[in-house]
């Protein structure tokens, strides 16, 4: 019986995550859907919140696109925007990488945090931008997560983090790994306050981010097709040298294995988040 259940599973090699991300970015410029190859006009894409009208492929959103999409108009107030990474280990090439990421994205770091309302409910919102060094988590991202959590504790309002990350920022060595523990410590206090924490896992959420704050939410949502996991598919492929299942580490795979609460199509995402906030009576405590 088992054999028949697995026998039908189609096994194809999964694409390398890095190539996958690059091809996504390239094709946004060319407005070609990487999934169905349909050419989508920029306007069409914008109106459809960067979801392919043909096949529902979810293009990556930048940190600010995500904020404009999630927050009620003109309510988002960014905080801690002046935190910058420094090359504390004198890691070769890190300064240059930071500089070019800042130039490319106009951001100072991969994570943007602030306060806003969603459906009229006040929340703390954080979004990550995978264009910025694969949104790897270094000291700044860790600190910004912590301060966002602390702000939510102060104001007794819900916290929503939209994650996207390749993992810990290797250029900061152990200081970046320790951000996993640091964010977990602050979230532990948050949960003790009886407050609501939701995460939206977007493509890709892996490594140190998935093994810390992304997984510690009361409610974990995911975007369709997002790559979610601990180890990157490339590492796994190298380790076990086997062909991986076709949907391996996709949001759908994670749902099937019980790791996320719900996969939400971006077109109904805001409604879903609003409903969840409503069901938590705004998520305010006290």
């Amino acid at each position, binding site marked *: 019986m088992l054999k028949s259940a697995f026998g039908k599973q189609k096994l194809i090699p999964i694409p390398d995550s890095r190539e996958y991300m690059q091809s996504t970015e390239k094709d946004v410029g060319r407005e070609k859907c990487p999934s169905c190859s349909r050419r989508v006009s920029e306007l069409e894409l914008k109106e459809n919140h960067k979801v392919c009208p043909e096949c529902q492929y979810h293009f990556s959103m930048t940190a600010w696109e995500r904020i404009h999409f999630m927050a009620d108009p003109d309510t988002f107030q960014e905080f801690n925007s*002046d*935190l*910058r*990474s*420094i090359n*504390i*280990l004198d890691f*070769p*090439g890190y300064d240059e990488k930071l500089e070019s990421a800042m130039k490319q994205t106009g951001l100072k770091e991969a994570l943007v945090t602030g306060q806003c309302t969603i459906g009229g409910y006040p929340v703390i919102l954080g979004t990550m931008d995978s264009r910025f060094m694969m949104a790897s988590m*270094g*000291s*700044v991202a*860790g600190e910004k997560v*912590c301060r966002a959590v602390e702000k939510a504790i102060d104001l007794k309002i819900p916290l929503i983090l939209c994650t996207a990350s390749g993992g*810990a*920022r*290797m*250029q*900061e*060595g*152990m*200081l*970046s*790994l*320790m*951000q*996993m*523990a*640091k964010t*977990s*410590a*602050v*979230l*532990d*206090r948050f*949960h*003790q306050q009886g407050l609501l924490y939701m995460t939206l896992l977007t493509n890709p959420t892996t*490594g*140190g981010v998935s*093994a*810390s*704050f*992304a*997984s*510690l939410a009361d409610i974990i949502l995911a975007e369709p097709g997002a790559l979610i*996991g*601990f*180890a*990157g598919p490339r*590492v*796994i492929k190298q*380790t*076990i040298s086997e062909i*991986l*299942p076709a949907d*391996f*580490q996709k949001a759908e795979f994670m749902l099937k*294995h*019980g*790791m996320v609460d719900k996969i939400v199509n971006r077109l109904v995402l805001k409604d879903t988040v609003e409903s969840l906030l409503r069901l938590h009576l705004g998520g305010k405590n006290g």
Partner: protein
Amino acid sequence: MVKRHFDYEEKYKNLQGKFEELQELSKNLQFDLTNEFKLMEKKMKDIRDNKYQNLTAWEKILLSRHQERPTVRDYIEFIFDDWIEMHGDRCYGDDRAVIGGIASLKGIPVTVLGHQKGRGTNENLHTNFGMPHPEGYRKVERLILQAEKFKRPVLTLIDTPGAYPGVGAEERGQAGAIAQVLMTLCSLKVPIISAVTGEGGSGGALALAVCDRLLMLSNSVFSVASAEACASIIWKDAGRAEEMASALKLTAQDIKDLGIADEIIEEPMGGAHKDFETMAKKLEESLVSNLKELLALESHELNEQRYKRLRQIGRFQEN
């Protein structure tokens, strides 16, 4: 070409062998070189000691993975009395890459946890090279909560290349299992002391390193990811692992300088495996003295200190 194993010992042994041959020969030929030999012996020892005191980061990685390096089980069996191992996560299975149980440290009941590597292929297949699956972290979660219930301090010994990257591990929620242990440890109401005895590899090691005191053996390392992985990801060249090892600042001294480790426990000359008993006794002494200090604190003080300790980690610019 990256050096794959620590070959200094072999070179030295070679020289030592020739030296002994020469001594033998001079004896047979009745050439009295006693004074010269004494001088040479001292010089050779100096050269060797000097080498061991100035190992590169990569050489320390190789030593931390040395085939003969004492495993976590070796330390547990030497240091603790009445060690009783507990098995299983009560959900899926028993991960042999993480061991845990109850034991006594100088009469104080404690919960002991650690990564278990093996010696040789067979043992390593049994323990999965010390790379845990989610059920390993869920076993840890179960045993630390049990420790809290019975007010037992938690001692963890760290020696792993990292959490296992595989299909089953992903299917059973590796990321979530690690995250949960991290969070539980943050406010566990009993003292936690961690010691890196070998390799501290990535999130899989960190899950056992959220603590009140972090000790490191002098040749142990703690790294965000393996030097090989970092070199292949950042520089697209795994062959530059040696160079990456230095760049990552992963030696015990580096980790202490970064304010993450509290104490370095000096290894015997040549590494922990050269004199296991001395090493284990030193580790025991350090565990005992740190535990005594921590046991003097109320649990809320302990939690507050642990929180502050974690909260301040990170360096950035703000203006």
